[in-house]
């Protein structure tokens, strides 16, 4: 957006400092079509520049860094923050509020294996599984083990980022990998198979969060933000072909794959009771695995706009 030099008349809340810029995190992966639409079609700029507010889209993709930036005041909106990251940050004292759901995409999160002998999650007993710790993928592994009546320590879990996990699986160092996003089709192509997805196990909730301070001082801006988000969803519905094309260009994923993958995502921003239950399940998972020590009330985390 362009910078406006003339002072803007202050419309509301004389006590709060005037907002001159909005920093909204931009996460395009695994396949965050609404964000892509918002950024590429300048939806936020259209909404806010008329008030002299400059909008920027820092690409902070890792949850912990996003919450750190939010706490540092370098970020106003976490547009697509993993449920786990939101809970961990909030529990550790970051003043953040969930103002909406970004997506639920159980199918986008998978456990994959290359060894043909491993046919199901049950075959993972005594095997090595690699993937990022404390994330939805980790949660998926534990949930699926439980579903298959395996104990947590009956597989050897190895913590590593997704790209390394893929590499380790390709090299035969681990038997299965926890994979999400564009790495999934890539791995499929190389002969790996999906053992299970999150479907039926968890919802893989991604949320939209804002700093508590910001929400208190500028509830109107938050409201307008959500309206823009709605508008981008609207646009997605109206012109799917154009949107898929846009997403394919932005992510480098082929159009066909985009079309295939987009079906896995539910972008409805409304926070349902089921979402809250899922977030609570996530907190439970973190607590059980010693990643969280103090429990918080999920409901208090959610701001009703």
């Amino acid at each position, binding site marked *: 957006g362009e910078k406006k030099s003339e002072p803007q008349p202050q419309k509301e809340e004389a006590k709060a400092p005037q907002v001159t810029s909005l920093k909204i995190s931009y996460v395009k992966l695994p396949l965050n079509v609404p964000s892509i639409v918002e950024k590429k079609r300048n939806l936020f700029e259209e909404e806010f520049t008329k008030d002299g507010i400059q909008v920027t889209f820092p690409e902070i993709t890792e949850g912990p860094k996003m919450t750190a930036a939010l706490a540092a005041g370098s*970020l106003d909106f976490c547009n697509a923050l993993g449920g786990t990251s939101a809970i961990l940050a909030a529990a550790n004292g970051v003043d953040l509020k969930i103002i909406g759901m970004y997506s639920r995409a159980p199918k986008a999160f998978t456990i994959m294996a290359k060894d043909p002998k491993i046919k199901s999650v049950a075959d993972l007993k005594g095997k090595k599984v690699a993937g990022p710790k404390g994330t939805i993928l980790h949660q998926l592994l534990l949930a699926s083990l439980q579903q298959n009546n395996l104990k947590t320590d009956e597989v050897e879990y190895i913590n590593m980022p997704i790209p390394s996990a893929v590499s380790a699986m*390709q090299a035969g160092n681990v038997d299965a990998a926890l994979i999400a*996003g564009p790495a999934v089709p890539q*791995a499929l192509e190389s002969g790996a198979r999906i053992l299970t997805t999150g479907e039926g196990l968890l919802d893989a909730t991604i949320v939209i969060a804002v700093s508590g301070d910001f929400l208190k001082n500028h509830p109107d801006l938050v409201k307008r933000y959500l309206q823009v988000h709605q508008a981008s969803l609207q646009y997605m519905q109206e012109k799917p072909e154009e949107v898929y094309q846009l997403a394919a260009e932005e992510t480098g994923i082929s159009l066909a794959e985009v079309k295939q993958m987009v079906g896995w995502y539910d972008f409805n921003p409304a926070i349902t009771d089921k979402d809250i239950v899922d977030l609570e399940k996530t907190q439970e998972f973190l607590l059980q695995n010693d990643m969280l020590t103090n429990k918080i009330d999920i409901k208090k985390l959610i701001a009703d706009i």
Partner: protein
Amino acid sequence: MKQLKGMVIPLVILLFWIAGSATEMINQYIIPPPAKVLQTAIDLTASGVLLKHITISLYRVFAGFFLTVLFAFPLAVLVGMNQKLEPYIEPVLDFLGHIPPIACIPMLILWFGIGETSKLAVIILATFFPVFLNTLNGILSCSKQLLEVGEVFGFRARDKFWRIIMPAALPSIIVGFRLGLGYSWRSLIGAELIAAASGIGYMIIDAEQLSRPDIIIVGILTIGFFGYIIDYCFFKLSNRLLPWVGERVNYGRS
């Protein structure tokens, strides 16, 4: 001729790569065949993406390196010339010298925001020590005999520094600068982890998330190539400007 000799080892590696890919000895999904990497390189170049990334990274490397020199060099001179300061500053620097800049990213964001400043801070943290320590060593190693010459001709500290210490310390300083430049490039990945939307480090991180090893390899080769070129120019330039450095082994007899 010298350039040709330098190509021997890369060519051997390339041959292994081609052979390994053809015989499928090398995993195609982690190290794609040369043809594919070449194609990607051509595409990225043609579309101007690579140029955009390398331009912004070049700017960051140069700015970061320049700022590092701006901090590290005078500090090394200060400590080297006033050895009373050393016990105050050395332990602190020594302590800092072991800390991974990546671990400090949240703090850097707190202090410097998520703009260019934090990125430059990461580069500076990664680059500071070779420049500092090598400059300091160069200064401290300066022959006392030659310094006494300055002394008896009424040189002030400044004159001694520019006319005796600097020329004597140059080989060390240049090593520090070369190492520093190298670490500037290396720190790009860490720096461009902070909310970057462009830069060669960003390109690599992004490609990693997109599972595009071909792009990663193009990125690595680009960094290596530009790094080498800059280092080469730097080396030639310093030899040109300071002809005696290249021939330092000939000093011996003086």
